[in-house]
């Protein structure tokens, strides 16, 4: 059985004036340890789907099962959700920010704290513990947010355009870093992005979404050769260019 099962999810937003169907009968199975990207036009419901998977939003119909159980019933934090911006708490130091999840989950102990600080070090931010978020650059904050999400040790990571606010170089570097970190811990991840290249370089499977209402239009599997490379190396591989063309064409078809 799959690690994550998204079963026939539909969601409609109601406001006084309108009812907007953001998602319509989405079904998807995701295996443990795999990396999925969601690619699609703005407003097709990607963020909505992530909110539903994380349990922050109840779908109008359908259900999400993680390891065979509804997400609300899990006692462990199975899911780490990294929002589109870093949302570090400006009045907390970096240390307080990254330990926040552990503290709320009552899992703060010597070992888990040590692990978190090691993570911060690996991500290249040793020595920033006592600083405040506004003393860091955008890319550094993004990395801290990643540490905060990983610190709680979730099995499934939801990443909503985590690299969109970064300059190209930082973005490439972070892609490699995230990819390596997730692989080494064997995490399952879902990445929302607008960047075709990023989707190809990082993931095992790409889900193309069509809008109005949001549906999965197509699933494209990334060839084995690319999966085993780091995102940066993958971008230089010949397969990359041809897959890029394919995805590009599909997206163009989608708009028609």
């Amino acid at each position, binding site marked *: 059985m799959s690690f994550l099962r998204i079963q026939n999810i539909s969601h409609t937003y109601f406001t006084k004036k309108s009812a907007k169907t953001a998602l319509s009968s989405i079904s998807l199975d995701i295996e443990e340890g795999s990396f999925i990207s969601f690619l699609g036009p703005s407003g097709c419901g990607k963020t909505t789907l992530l909110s539903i998977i*994380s349990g*922050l939003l109840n779908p109008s119909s359908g259900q999400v099962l993680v390891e065979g159980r509804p997400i609300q019933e899990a006692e462990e*934090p199975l*899911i*780490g*959700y990294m*929002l589109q*911006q870093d*949302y570090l*708490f*400006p*009045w907390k130091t970096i240390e307080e920010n990254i330990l*926040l*999840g552990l503290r*709320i*989950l009552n899992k703060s102990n010597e070992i888990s704290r040590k692990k978190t600080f090691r993570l911060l070090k690996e991500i290249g931010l040793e020595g920033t513990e006592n600083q*405040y978020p*506004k003393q860091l650059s955008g890319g550094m904050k993004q990395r801290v947010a990643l540490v905060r999400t990983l610190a*709680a040790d979730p099995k499934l990571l939801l990443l909503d355009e985590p690299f969109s606010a970064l300059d190209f170089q930082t973005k490439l570097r972070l892609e490699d870093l995230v990819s390596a970190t997730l692989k080494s811990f064997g995490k399952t991840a879902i990445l929302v992005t607008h960047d075709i290249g990023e989707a190809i370089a990082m993931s095992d499977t790409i889900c193309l979404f069509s809008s109005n209402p949001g549906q999965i239009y197509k699933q494209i599997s990334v060839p084995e050769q690319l999966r085993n490379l780091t995102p940066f190396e993958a971008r230089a591989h010949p397969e990359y260019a041809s897959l890029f063309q394919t995805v590009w064409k599909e997206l163009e078809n989608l708009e028609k």
Partner: protein
Amino acid sequence: MKSKSTHIEQLHKQYIESLIREKRIVRTYQLFIFAFFFSVWELSSRLEWVDPLIFSSPSKIIELLLTKIQDGSIFTHIGYTVFETILGFILGTLSGTLLAAILWWSPLVSKVLDPYLVILNAMPKVALGPILIVALGPGFTSIIAMGAIISVIITTIVVYTSFREVDPNYMKVLQTFGASRFVCFKEAILPACFPTIISTLKVNVGLSWVGVIVGEFLVSQQGLGYLIIYGFQVFNFSLVLMSLLIIAVFATIMYQLVEYLERKMIKSSNQ
């Protein structure tokens, strides 16, 4: 290169000197206005350009103050008023913030109470004075209640509004870790609104003085407000003006203290 840098140093020195000079000028004028005001007052009272019975004079006020200091009675009055004001101010701010938290906690309650808040906010609170005195008795409970009630509704409205304006994504971050509503409030909402709460303190200090003085007018037992009303009734305007000056001094001190507190807190909250 070297001469250029010494030149810049010199300019910088000149700039600092000009700042100091300006500050000195400002202080001189301020002192002058102070001295001018009181000497004209003294003079016009002595020469009877104005009615000395009504406008008194600085020397008479000081004389009165000295006798009141000698018999110690002024300290009781100051003590009462300052105590009532501080308590009213703290109570008003705390209960306003607490009410705001309740409104935030339950959207239904906040919707239900909305029109009442509007009405209560629009109403002049001092008009409630007589009712408070009947309800709580003519003592300092009613006066403190006046000091608090005058600031509680506006605090509620301002703080509640800022609670609602906190970016909901901060709460989402906490909720992904399974945080309860209480944890969300404690970790995200309250600290995010700290600057707003502190700035309401400044407004509330002023409001509490109004509430307490009016309360003392009505209760008429003790305090600087009572001295004003008493002096008015026995036509002792030296007493009225003396109390007024003392109120001005203490209100200023309290306001400065709160401002100092604000600077400290804001600084520590966004280092």
